[in-house]
């Protein structure tokens, strides 16, 4: 009786190994579905999700105008002190003083892509861009000024 049990166990063990080997063999011969991304070579076709949180950018239109009013809501919402808004006063044609942004400084090296500044912005001036190749040789290159030089606020954005 002991011998029969022993032989049964041995055959059961071999069977369990073969079941696993069969599956491995199946995938070895049926490599239809290739899921590996050939990353540096597929840069042209690589498409990330629209909502991918890569870095904060400020979209400008063709007249070099942005939507930022300098309300500092993003600066207050940021948990890491990533954004610093530097404001100035413009003189409007009517001779009134108007608050506008001088610089919107963005420290990419401090950013954790938590999206809280985008949610906080009342005028949709900043968005997340689906980029991820951020490596640079000098850390100071990661500190960016988001508004372009000589850009102005869009008309009608308060």
């Amino acid at each position, binding site marked *: 009786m002991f011998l029969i049990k022993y032989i049964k166990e041995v055959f*059961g063990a071999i069977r369990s190994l073969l079941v696993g080997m069969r599956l491995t063999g199946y995938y070895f011969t049926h490599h239809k579905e290739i899921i590996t991304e050939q990353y540096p070579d597929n840069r042209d076709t690589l498409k990330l999700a629209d*909502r991918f949180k890569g870095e904060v950018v400020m979209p400008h239109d063709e007249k070099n105008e942005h939507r930022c009013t300098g309300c500092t809501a993003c600066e207050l919402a940021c948990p890491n002190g990533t954004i610093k808004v530097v404001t100035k006063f413009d003189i409007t044609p009517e001779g009134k003083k108007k608050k506008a942004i001088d610089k919107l400084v963005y420290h990419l090296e401090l950013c954790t892509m938590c999206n*809280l500044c985008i949610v906080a912005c009342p005028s949709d001036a900043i968005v997340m861009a689906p980029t991820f190749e951020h490596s640079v040789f000098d850390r100071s290159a990661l500190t960016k000024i988001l508004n372009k030089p000589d850009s102005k606020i869009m008309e009608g954005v308060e």
Partner: protein
Amino acid sequence: MFEEIGTTSNGDLQINVGPQHPATHGVLHLVLTLNGETIKKVEPHLGYIHRSIEKMCESLSYRQFIYVTSRMDYLSAHMNNHACALCVEKGMQIEVPERAQVIRVIMDELTRIASHELWWGAMAMDIGAFTPFFHSFREREKINEIMEETCGARLTMNYYVPGGLMADLHPDFQKKVKEFIIQFKQRIDEYDQLVTGNIIFQNRMKGVGILSKEDAVSYGCTGPTARGSGLSSDIRKLYPYAVYGKVEFEEILETGCDSFARYMVRIREMKQSIRIIEQLIDQIPEGDFQAKTKAVLKLPKGEFYTRVETARGELGVYIVSEGATTPYRIKFRSPGFSNLSALDSMARGSKLGDLVAMMGTLDLVIPDIDR
């Protein structure tokens, strides 16, 4: 005369496993006392990845601190955020819309599957099987893609905010989740063929790393670690939150108390998660995804505690508020810390080679233990 380096006075050998060791999955440092090949004592040394998250949270507002908790247990980031959001909602008495609650449960269960997938691959690799790692990552990639589309990130999503969700679902979400469910149901049977039934695997797991029910209670084990010892500890069943009270699912209990029981709990839990998602994916109600909240959240003076079931066990969030915009004190009760403390009683008397298998079944995430 002189004690040899690495030996104690009675001739036992002391060796270090970690902090840089491929089987500890992070910077866990274990000091083992060995008599020959038999383990006499396991002493975990913590603190290598301590980032003082609890202290950091004290200087952040109630909206800001949630993103930090994704970095505690990065494999169940959604559940960590859920616990924090629930705690703030409890303090502010915010009613979360039905739609947000349902989406939260679906996201939680997807995260649970992704976490168990990674555990399954890494655990099989600890035992010595390398291929399962790629099988599990193939399915996990699908979940990560779903997350990336809706939440914008693959691991540290920060998708839950007090009062609901940060953004609405992506239009393709339901379609992609249904595709994933069909695919995953076939693949989970392959897991059983590949690893569960394997005789070598079973011999390595059965009867190894015994954690009795009494020990599981006294060490405060939760999650699959406790359920492998027959201890009912599923927060989703015992103290239902979100819409867990309305969906049908089983609490998985195994009575083997050994490594194989803990393994089977997680494999069967993945099937239950699929069952929960199947019930909800067509029933996502229309409506707002976020409740209207005040611009600045101020919790009233008092103490608030909520808990959720993460992939590793019970995560508790305890907030002491003085009525200001920032919490006075935050304490996280993490599942990994209590589960790791049971390792000593599990490993005593067993062989050195089985230690890695035991650690694998505990499903340790070191940033969750250290915080």
